[in-house]
């Protein structure tokens, strides 16, 4: 085909006009890849040569004492903080260091903050409806109608987070744990590929912790989930693979048993609790 034919072919879609298909390329395994990342605040090295790889569909727990750099790592992944050196890749195509916060969110990285914020005056169903991926400009929102497939999607998530009986109840009456699940549900409505969950069981009762563990393990496989948590019992109940952070870099990585028998880890972290 000559160049002329190529250019005048009406089926032709130029590369720069084509929408980015398959936004995340995970053919090589990892969905998230951090290499030699360092960041310092006023000379204090919050993250120091951090290397971390999360596989597609994995459930990973990250533990570490206060100040180990857990939250800073989350900030770097979501674009809130820029590292001084190093590279961060989402799949093998997206360099997260060149993207803004909303871009990263729309690529499919969802983050749950420590403190749950749900819209208390709205029902569980409405909370999920607002979180749903949709055209969020004013007029499309005004004229939006609840299509059956949206309803199915919301029902699916309501089921998943175990709030089916409470779907019509205002979120304000939910218990602390239920609000956490609703918040995770709101993240799921945006169909993320990677979920970053910051301290999901803080302030939860034993039973709520069990339910949360079930919820997070059921999500793994479809989504990749990274959980930052202090509660060792909870981590033990869900973790297949645990990463221990200490002073901004990885101290140990492996199964919970391997990690908890590591003398270094016992010294800096587990030792404190014993």
């Amino acid at each position, binding site marked *: 085909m000559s160049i002329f034919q190529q250019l005048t072919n009406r089926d032709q879609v130029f590369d720069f006009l084509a929408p980015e298909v398959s936004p995340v390329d995970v053919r090589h395994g990892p969905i998230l890849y951090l290499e030699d990342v360092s960041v310092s605040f006023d000379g204090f090295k919050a993250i120091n040569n951090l290397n971390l790889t999360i596989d597609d569909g994995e459930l990973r727990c990250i533990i570490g004492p206060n100040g180990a750099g857990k939250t800073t790592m989350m900030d770097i992944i979501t674009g809130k903080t820029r590292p001084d050196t190093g590279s961060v890749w989402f799949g093998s195509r997206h360099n997260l260091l060149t993207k803004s916060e909303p871009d990263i969110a729309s690529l499919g990285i969802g983050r749950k903050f420590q403190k749950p*914020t749900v819209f208390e005056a709205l029902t569980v169903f409405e909370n999920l409806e607002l979180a749903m991926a949709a055209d969020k*400009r004013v007029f499309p929102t005004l004229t939006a109608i609840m299509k059956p497939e949206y309803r199915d999607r919301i029902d699916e998530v309501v089921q998943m987070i175990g709030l089916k009986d409470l779907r019509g109840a205002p979120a304000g009456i939910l218990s602390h*744990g239920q609000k956490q699940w609703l918040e995770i549900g709101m993240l799921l409505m945006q169909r993320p590929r990677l979920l970053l969950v910051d301290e999901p069981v803080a302030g939860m009762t034993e039973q709520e912790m069990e339910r949360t563990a079930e919820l997070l393990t059921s999500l793994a496989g479809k989504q990749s989930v990274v959980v930052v948590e202090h509660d060792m019992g909870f981590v033990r109940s869900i973790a297949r693979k645990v990463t221990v952070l200490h002073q901004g870099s990885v101290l140990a990585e492996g199964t919970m048993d391997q990690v908890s028998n590591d003398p270094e880890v016992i010294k800096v972290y587990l030792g404190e609790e014993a």
Partner: protein
Amino acid sequence: MWLTRPLRERSTQLFLGVLFAALIVVTALHLLMPQDSALYVSSYTVTLLGKYLCYALLAVAVDLVWGYLGILSLGHGAFFALGGYAMGMYLMRQIGDRGVYGDPLLPDFMVFLNWDALPWYWQGFDMAWFAFIMVLLAPGLLALVFGFLAFRSRVTGVYLSIITQALTFALMLAFFRNEMGFGGNNGLTDFKDLLGFDLRTDATRLGLFLATGIALAIGYVVCRGIVTSKLGRVSVACRDAEARTRFLGYRVERVQLFVFVVSAMLAGVAGALYVPQVGIINPSEFSPLFSIEIVVWVALGGRATLYGAVIGAILVNYGKTVFTGIMPDAWLFALGGLFVLVTVFLPKGIAGLLFDRKKTKEEPDTPAQEATA
């Protein structure tokens, strides 16, 4: 369609039913009863009720931004007055050469000030369609510019309330000046006719009353349509957790701007219907006190219900009419006292009182909190 959705819901049907029944009853009593009957509704009362309905529409507009968007506007009187002035300018031009000075073009106050030409911003107001568009456009544009600047800078809460208050106060001072060309502190008055109908006849007064009732119905349905749409739920989300809403990807400032402009336009319509019924518009409608009074109506009636705003506006203004007849000096004390009592004992207003009993009955049915909580 977002506008027809409210027509299918029970509460709106009930509201419209009561409103239209009231309009029909008043009309029937006015037209059919003999003048000496106890049930006869005089022309004076019809106009008084029409005035209450204007206030009710204004209260609905305030409830839309305050109740559902969490923006406490203490300056909605400004939008009301701008709509009123747009209507007043049209009515002034309709006087023509029947004024005291008999000038075919200039309103009386301009002749009095020795002006020899009509200012540019008075052009076009001899045409009804232009004036009616300005009724929507003048308050809408002010709200758009003001809202754009305020919401873009993320001014909210009490700071926004103070700025709205300053806005209406500044406009009041400006409109008091004769040089502004809006009649100074006398405002615009001595109106003769509207669309060819003589304003002093009973039939026109009844027509204006009915038109106000219909405007209230439309305004209510528009607000209800917004409130029951997804945008309404986003508004409530902005009200309760603005940062979280932004995090979900909604442009909070645009949502606020849209609702604020709609509300300002509704207030303008209320003002435009108010002016021909009371026969005067002057800068006192811009006074901060009036804007605060509107908020009191809404608070008394019950926030975030829309019909509560209507109930509050009508009851308070009825009370004002009665009270200022008996003890004019005590009215403000009564209003203040009422406000305090309602805030302390009825946080949800009169609407809450009406519907709370039903709620408590329903409560056992609503899902109880998890036993583990």
